[in-house]
C-alpha cells in the first residue's frame, strides 16, 4: 500500500511537472496555481482512497470527482448546488468556456493573458493528464505509457508558440517523467524483494538484472522521447520557428479526416511570422520567362466558413503532380500567356503546401510525394515539407478586363461545393453592411467591387499587425467595428461579406511580392507572408482580390480586372518595406500612411537604425542565453564523470597516505611483508578508500559486486571468474588483505602501494571491457549514477513515508474506522 501511495504522489508530481512548459504559453502563472490546486486535490483524494483498501477503480473515480469539484470551484457559474456540486448549468458553462477558448485560440498570439477560457482549458488538460498518468503509472503499472499523455501536454507549447522560449520548464517536465520512471523501476524491483543472479548470488539493488533491463529500456525510451521534444530547443531560434510553422501549416486539412483545428495555425502562423523581430529568407523566386507583373505566390486556401471564421476543409481530391496538371478552363475569349518561374525554398519554411503561382500548368523537379488538388489549386504533401525544395512552375496569366467580368454569367449554384461557399453564418452586422454596400449593384463584379472598396482607409480601415492579441477580439464582426487589422483579417472579412452577398469566396495564403531583387530573382521573407481573398466568377474560375490596402504592404499587386482600385497604386520602392526587421510593414514611407500617420504605431522612418541595433543586442542576448544553456547542458551531462573523477582523486590521494612517515612502511620492507601499525585510524580509512575505489571501479566496468561477499571472496572471484592476472592479481590481493585488516583486525596494515594497486586493477578491467563499457565508465560512470538513483529514490520514499506517517496520525486523530468498527461490533 505504501508503495502505491508513494507512486501516487510521484505520478501527480510528474504530471504537473510535464505541464510546466505551458509557462511559455501564458503571460502569468495563474494557470499553474489553478492546475496545481486541482492536481493536489486529485492526488490527495487518491491517497486517501488508496489508504482505505478500496477497490481498484475507486481511486480513479475519486480522482475524477476531485478534479471535477476543483474545476467547478475554480470556474463556478453560480448554478452549482451548494456552490460547489456541479449542476447541468455548470457543464453548460464548461462547454461555453471551451468554445470561447477554441475561438480565442485563433485570435490570440502567445503569450496569452488570463482569459477564463484558456485557464479552464489548461487546468482541464493538466487534470486529465494527471488522471491518465495515475491510471497508467499506479493502477496499471505501465509508467512508460504514462509518458504519452505527458508528452502530449508537454508538446503543446512547442506547436503553439512561435517565439523562442525558456527551456527550463521543458527540462523540469523531462525530469518529471524520468522521476516517475526511476521510482517505478525501483518499486517494481522492491515488490519482488531481493534479487539474485542465476547462481544464487545476491545482487546489489542497482545491478543489472532482467528486470532492470526492462526498466532501462523504458528509461531509454523516455529519454529518447524527451530528446525528440527537447531537441528543437537546443537549436537556433530560426529552426524552432520553422518547425513551429511547419507544425502549424501542416494541418491545413490534408488527407482523409483532416487534422482539424490546425487551420487556426494558418492565421497564427501569419501573425506570428509577421510579428517576428527579424526577417528570415524563405523563398527565392526567379522569373524565368520575364513575366512583367507576376501575382502573389500562393500555397494554401481556406474554404470553410463557420461562425468561428475561415477553416481549411480537408483536401480529399488531388493527384500526384507527376500525372500532370489540368489546364485552367478559361473562356476561349480570354487572352492568356504562359510564364515560367523557378522557385527555391529555404530551410526556414517547412510547410506541407508548395508555394506556386496560380493557374499552374506544369510543375517540374518535384516528386510524386506532392499532389495537386484542382478545386483548391493547392499542391500539398502529407510526407514532405517544403524545406529546401527547388522546383519550377509553368503557369498561365490571363488578361481579364472588368467588362469581361461584368458580362460573366451568374454563378450556377448547382455545384454543391460552390453553393457551400456562397453562404455565410448569420450575423446581423454583416448582413446590414452587405445590404447597404450592394444596394443598386446588379452584376456580381460590381457587387464585389463595391464591397472591396469598403475596406479602404477612407472608410477608416487601418492596417495593424499588432491586433493578434487585441483585447477586443478580432472576430470579423469586431474587425468591421474596430476597423483595425492585418491582411488575414482583411481577407477573411472581405470573404465573409462576399459570401453574405451570395458570391463564392475563399481566403488564400501565400507571399506578396517584394523582398530584395537581383536581376530576375526575388527573395521573399517571413514579412512577405500574406493573405488575400479569391472570388469565383463563372467562366473564369477563382480570381484573386486583395482587400488589404496596397500601401500598407510592400508587394501588393494590382490585377487587370481591378485596374484603378480605390486603393492607391503601387510604389515600387515599397517592395523593400517588408524586409524591415519590424513586424509592422505598414510604413510612413507609403503614400497612404502620410494621410494617416497617427494610426501606424511602431516604425516611423528614421528609427530604423536604432531598431537594428536593439535587435542585434537582443539576438546577442538570445545567443548568449542559448550558449549558456548549452554550457549548462554539457555541464549537466558531464557531471557524473566529473563527480567520479573527484571521488577517485580524493580516495586515491587518501589511499596513498601522507607519504612515508616516521614509522615503518611497506615501501622499505621487502615485498610481501607488511608492517602493523598501532591502531591507526588513518591507515584504516586509507584502506577503506582504496577498497571503495576498487568496488566502484568494478561497478563502472560492469563487474558484478555483491554486498554479501567478503573482500577475500571478492578477490577469489576476481581471480577465478574475471581472470585477473599478474599485477592486477597482486594488486587486488593487496587491496583485500589491507581492507580485511582495516575492517577486522586489531591493527591495520600500512604502507602498501594501494594507489598503484587500484590503477593496475582498473587497467586490467579496462583492457577486458568492451569499448562501450569503457566509454561509459568514463562518461557516465555507473557507480555515480547508481548512487544518485539510490539517493533520489531514497529521498522520495522517505518523503512519502513521512507523508504516510502524517496521514496515519491524521487518521488516528479522526478515527473514522474506529467509530465505524465500534458501531459494527454492536
Amino acid at each position, binding site marked *: 500500500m505504501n508503495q502505491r501511495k508513494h507512486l501516487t504522489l510521484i505520478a501527480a508530481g510528474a504530471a504537473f511537472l510535464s505541464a510546466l512548459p505551458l509557462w511559455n504559453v501564458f503571460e502569468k502563472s495563474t494557470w499553474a496555481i489553478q492546475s496545481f490546486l486541482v492536481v493536489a486535490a486529485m492526488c490527495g483524494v487518491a491517497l486517501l482512497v488508496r489508504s482505505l483498501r478500496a477497490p481498484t477503480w475507486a481511486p480513479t473515480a475519486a480522482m475524477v470527482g476531485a478534479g471535477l469539484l476543483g474545476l467547478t470551484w475554480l470556474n463556478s457559474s453560480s448554478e452549482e448546488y451548494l456552490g460547489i456540486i456541479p449542476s447541468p448549468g455548470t457543464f453548460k458553462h464548461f462547454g461555453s468556456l471551451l468554445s470561447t477558448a477554441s475561438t480565442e485560440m485563433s485570435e490570440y498570439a502567445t503569450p496569452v493573458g488570463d482569459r477564463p477560457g484558456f485557464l479552464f482549458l489548461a487546468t482541464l488538460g493538466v487534470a486529465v493528464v494527471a488522471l491518465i498518468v495515475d491510471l497508467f503509472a499506479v493502477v496499471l503499472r505501465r509508467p512508460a505509457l504514462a509518458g504519452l499523455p505527458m508528452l502530449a501536454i508537454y508538446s503543446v507549447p512547442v506547436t503553439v508558440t512561435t517565439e523562442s522560449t525558456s527551456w527550463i520548464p521543458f527540462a523540469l517536465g523531462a525530469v518529471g517523467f524520468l522521476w516517475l520512471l526511476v521510482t517505478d523501476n525501483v518499486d517494481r524491483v*522492491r515488490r519482488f524483494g531481493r534479487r539474485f543472479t542465476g547462481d544464487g548470488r545476491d545482487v546489489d539493488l542497482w545491478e543489472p538484472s532482467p528486470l532492470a533491463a526492462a526498466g532501462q529500456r523504458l528509461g531509454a525510451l523516455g529519454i529518447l522521447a524527451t530528446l525528440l521534444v527537447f531537441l528543437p530547443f537546443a537549436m537556433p531560434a530560426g529552426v524552432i520557428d520553422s518547425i513551429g510553422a511547419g507544425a502549424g501549416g501542416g494541418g491545413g486539412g490534408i488527407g482523409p479526416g483532416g487534422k482539424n483545428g490546425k487551420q487556426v495555425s494558418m492565421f497564427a502562423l501569419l501573425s506570428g511570422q509577421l510579428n517576428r523581430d527579424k526577417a528570415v529568407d524563405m523563398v527565392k523566386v526567379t522569373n524565368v520567362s520575364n513575366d512583367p507583373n507576376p501575382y502573389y505566390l500562393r500555397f494554401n486556401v481556406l474554404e470553410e466558413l463557420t461562425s468561428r471564421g475561415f477553416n481549411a476543409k480537408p483536401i480529399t481530391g488531388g493527384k500526384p503532380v507527376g500525372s500532370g496538371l489540368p489546364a485552367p478552363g478559361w473562356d476561349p475569349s480570354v487572352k492568356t500567356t504562359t510564364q515560367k518561374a523557378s522557385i527555391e525554398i529555404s530551410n526556414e519554411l517547412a510547410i506541407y503546401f508548395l508555394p506556386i503561382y496560380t493557374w499552374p500548368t506544369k510543375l517540374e523537379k518535384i516528386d510524386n510525394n506532392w499532389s495537386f488538388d484542382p478545386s483548391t489549386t493547392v499542391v500539398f504533401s502529407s510526407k514532405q515539407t517544403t524545406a529546401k525544395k527547388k522546383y519550377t512552375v509553368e503557369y498561365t496569366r490571363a488578361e481579364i478586363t472588368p467588362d469581361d467580368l461584368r458580362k460573366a454569367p451568374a454563378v450556377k449554384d448547382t455545384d454543391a461545393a460552390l453553393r457551400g461557399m456562397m453562404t455565410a453564418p448569420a450575423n446581423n452586422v454583416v448582413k446590414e453592411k452587405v445590404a447597404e454596400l450592394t444596394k443598386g449593384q446588379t452584376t456580381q463584379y460590381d457587387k464585389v467591387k463595391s464591397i472591396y472598396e469598403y475596406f479602404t482607409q477612407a472608410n477608416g480601415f487601418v492596417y495593424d499587425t499588432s491586433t493578434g492579441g487585441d483585447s477586443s477580439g478580432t472576430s470579423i464582426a469586431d474587425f468591421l467595428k474596430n476597423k483595425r487589422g492585418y491582411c488575414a483579417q482583411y481577407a477573411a472579412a472581405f470573404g465573409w461579406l462576399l459570401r453574405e452577398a451570395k458570391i463564392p469566396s475563399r481566403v488564400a495564403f501565400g507571399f506578396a511580392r517584394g523582398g530584395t531583387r537581383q536581376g530576375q530573382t526575388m527573395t521573399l521573407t517571413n514579412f512577405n507572408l500574406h493573405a488575400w481573398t479569391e472570388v469565383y466568377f463563372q467562366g473564369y474560375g477563382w480570381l484573386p482580390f486583395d482587400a488589404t490596402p496596397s500601401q500598407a504592404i510592400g508587394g501588393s499587386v494590382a490585377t487587370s480586372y481591378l485596374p484603378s482600385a480605390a486603393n492607391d497604386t503601387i510604389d515600387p520602392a515599397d517592395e523593400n518595406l517588408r524586409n524591415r526587421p519590424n513586424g509592422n510593414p505598414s510604413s510612413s514611407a507609403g503614400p497612404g500612411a502620410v494621410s494617416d500617420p497617427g494610426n501606424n504605431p511602431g516604425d516611423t522612418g528614421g528609427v530604423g537604425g536604432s531598431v537594428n541595433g536593439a535587435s542585434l543586442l537582443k539576438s546577442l542576448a538570445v545567443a548568449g542565453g542559448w550558449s549558456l544553456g548549452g554550457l549548462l547542458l554539457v555541464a549537466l551531462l558531464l557531471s557524473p564523470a566529473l563527480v567520479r573523477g573527484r571521488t577517485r582523486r580524493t580516495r586515491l590521494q587518501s589511499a596513498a597516505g601522507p607519504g612515508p612517515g616516521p614509522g615503518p612502511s611497506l615501501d622499505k620492507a621487502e615485498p610481501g611483508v607488511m608492517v602493523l601499525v598501532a591502531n591507526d585510524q588513518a591507515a584504516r580509512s586509507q584502506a577503506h578508500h582504496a577498497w571503495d575505489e576498487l568496488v566502484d571501479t568494478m561497478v563502472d566496468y560492469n563487474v558484478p559486486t555483491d*554486498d*554479501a561477499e567478503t573482500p577475500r*571472496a571478492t578477490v577469489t572471484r576476481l581471480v577465478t571468474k574475471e581472470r585477473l592476472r599478474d599485477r592486477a592479481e597482486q594488486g587486488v590481493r593487496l587491496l583485500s588483505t589491507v581492507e580485511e585488516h582495516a575492517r*577486522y*583486525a586489531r591493527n591495520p596494515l600500512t604502507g602498501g602501494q594501494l594507489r598503484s594497486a587500484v590503477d593496475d586493477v582498473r587497467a586490467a578491467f579496462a583492457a577486458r571491457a568492451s569499448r562501450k563499457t569503457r566509454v561509459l565508465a568514463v562518461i557516465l560512470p555507473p557507480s555515480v549514477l547508481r548512487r544518485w538513483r*539510490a539517493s533520489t529514490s531514497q529521498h522520495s520514499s522517505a518523503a512519502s513515508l513521512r507523508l504516510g506517517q502524517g496521514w*496515519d496520525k491524521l487518521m488516528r486523530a479522526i478515527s473514522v474506522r474506529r467509530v465505524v*468498527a465500534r458501531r459494527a461490533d454492536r
Partner: protein
Amino acid sequence: MTRHRTFEELGAPLPSPEFRAATDAIVANIEQVIEGKTATVRLALAVLLAEGHLLIEDVPGVGKTKLAKALAKSIDCSVRRIQFTPDLLPSDVTGVSVYNQETRDFEFKPGAVFANIVVGDEINRASPKTQSALLESMEERQVTVDGATYPLQIPFMVIATQNPIEMEGTYPLPEAQRDRFTARIAMGYPDMGAELAMLDVHGRHDALDDILPVSDATAVRRMIATVRDVHVADAVKQYAVNIVTATRESGELRLGSSPRATLQLLRTARAVAALEGREFVLPDDLQALAVPVLAHRVIPTAEAQLSRRTTDAIIAELVHRLPLPSDRQPRSPYDTRTAPPRGGQQQQFGGR
C-alpha cells in the same frame, strides 16, 4: 581431580609460531590415519580448541570412529571411549557412589566422562536417559551424583558419532539435544586418490597403532588460551548475530539457532582463525562455519522437508545472501529484510 576452570588455569597463550607448530603436528598426526580429510580434521581440532563438542554423523565405515580415536590418541591426555548400546546405564557415563567398607563412607567412582576426551561411539544406540546424562555433563562441564558435584577436566571434549541411516533400534538425538554439540560434521567418502592411498597405507595393519601423542593436555590448555585471545571486530560480531537472526526469521526454518549457537559460532571462528595463523576473525570464518555449527540445531518447516531441502542447504543459502555488516555504509533503504519494528504501527488498526 577437582579443578577450577579459571582463565589462569589455562596457562599463558602460546606464541603464534609455537601454536602453529603444535596444531600442524596434531593435524599431520591424525592425517596419518585418516586419508584425504584435511578440512574435517582441522574442523575437529578447531572444535577442541573452541572448547566444544563434536558430533560426527555419517554412514558406517567412513572413518568416524577412526577420526575420534586418532584425535584422542594424538593428545597425551586421558581418553575414554564409550560404546553406546541400549543397555548402557547413565551411571556408566557419569559415575556412581559406592559404599567403601574400609572407610565406611560412600566413595565416588567416576564414570566415562571424567576424561579429557570422551569418544561416544554410536550415541544414538543408547537410551534417551543415558544420552541425556552425557549431554548434561557436556553442557555443565560437571557431574552431580547423590548431591555432590564433581567438575570435569580441561580440556573436555565429547566426540560422538552416529549413523543416520540405520534407524532400527536407535534413539535419534532430539534436535534440542543436538544443540549441545558445537559442530556436526559429515565425514563424506574419501576421493579416489585418498581411497587408493588408504589401501596402500592401511591395507595390512591399523595405522592407529603407529601414531604417538604429539601434544598434551597442558599444551592444549595453552592453545585454548591462545584461541580465546583472538580478536573479533564489532562488525564480525554483528555479522554473527545477523546470521543467527536470519535463521530465526527464515521462512524455511521452524526452529532457528539459539544464543548458545551464536556463542559457539564465534568461539569456533576464533579457533579456525587461530589455526590459520590469523589473530583476528574474518566474516569468511563465520561463513565457512555456519553450516557445521548451525545446521544440526535448526528444524526445517514441513514444506521445506517436503521439498527435500536439507538444513545444510538452507543455512548455506541464507549465509550466501546475507550482506556483510559495515559501520561505514548505511543500510540500504531497499533492504526489505528484517525491517526494524516501527512503534506499534501494525497494531493500530488491529482491533478491527
